[in-house]
């Protein structure tokens, strides 16, 4: 379906951005340790975050509904949810590299559903991903 094609396209785009970043020799500054790992000589620190909301297509929602009846893995949602999660982490890494942070510690990723209606069937479905952490700059020796 068209939605699948569109999502495949943005996933491929993200994959190539990630690959370009890796090939350029950029480091991986994100970790979820609770203390700065490389040195104790910290110049400054600040809270950084990145977020995105994504939604599956109507077609996928319908397929998902069907699958729910039989149980099992819902492949149609996989693509969108993994896209959202990878995207926030990628954005955060880009942010760290651009702003010259040495690392981002204690990174958390949270997921929440943003469009849930108490009654009736809502035609929109959205999931929000937010990643946040503490960005660190070390004192240059």
């Amino acid at each position: 379906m068209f939605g699948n094609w569109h999502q495949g396209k943005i996933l491929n785009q993200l994959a190539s951005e990630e690959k370009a970043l890796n090939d350029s020799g950029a480091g991986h500054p994100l970790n979820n340790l609770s203390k700065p790992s490389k040195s104790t000589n910290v110049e400054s620190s600040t809270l950084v975050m990145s977020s995105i909301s994504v939604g599956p297509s109507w077609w996928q929602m319908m397929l998902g509904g069907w699958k729910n009846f039989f149980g099992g893995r819902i492949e149609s949602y996989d693509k969108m949810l993994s896209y959202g999660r990878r995207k926030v982490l990628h954005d955060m890494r880009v942010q760290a590299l651009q702003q010259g942070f040495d690392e981002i510690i204690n990174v958390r990723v949270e997921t929440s559903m943003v469009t849930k209606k108490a009654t009736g069937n809502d035609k929109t479905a959205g999931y929000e991903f937010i990643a946040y952490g503490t960005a660190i700059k070390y004192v240059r020796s």
Partner: protein
Amino acid sequence: MSQGMHLSNTETIPGKLITASYGLVQGSTVRAKNAFKDFGAGLKNMVGGELKAYTELLQESRNEALQRMMMDAQSRGANAIVNVRFATSAVSGGAAELFAYGTAVTVQ
């Protein structure tokens, strides 16, 4: 972001010493999505993918929750907030509550 306020989601401000603690501070905001934007997001939902209208709305609201938390901390005389956490919940059809909380402290 308000000036001079250190924020961190770790238990200390890296490289600084905590001298006093003022307890839990919080900030929250409930935002409903705009009907027009919702319509746009509904259309976008046909193909799936990023829902930009929601992304922006939530970022804006989260910043507001952070601001309120910082105001709370400032009113207690703190200059930093450690162990900041975010929580989001859908309170009713089309509205979301964004909540930020942390511990207000003074660092040297």
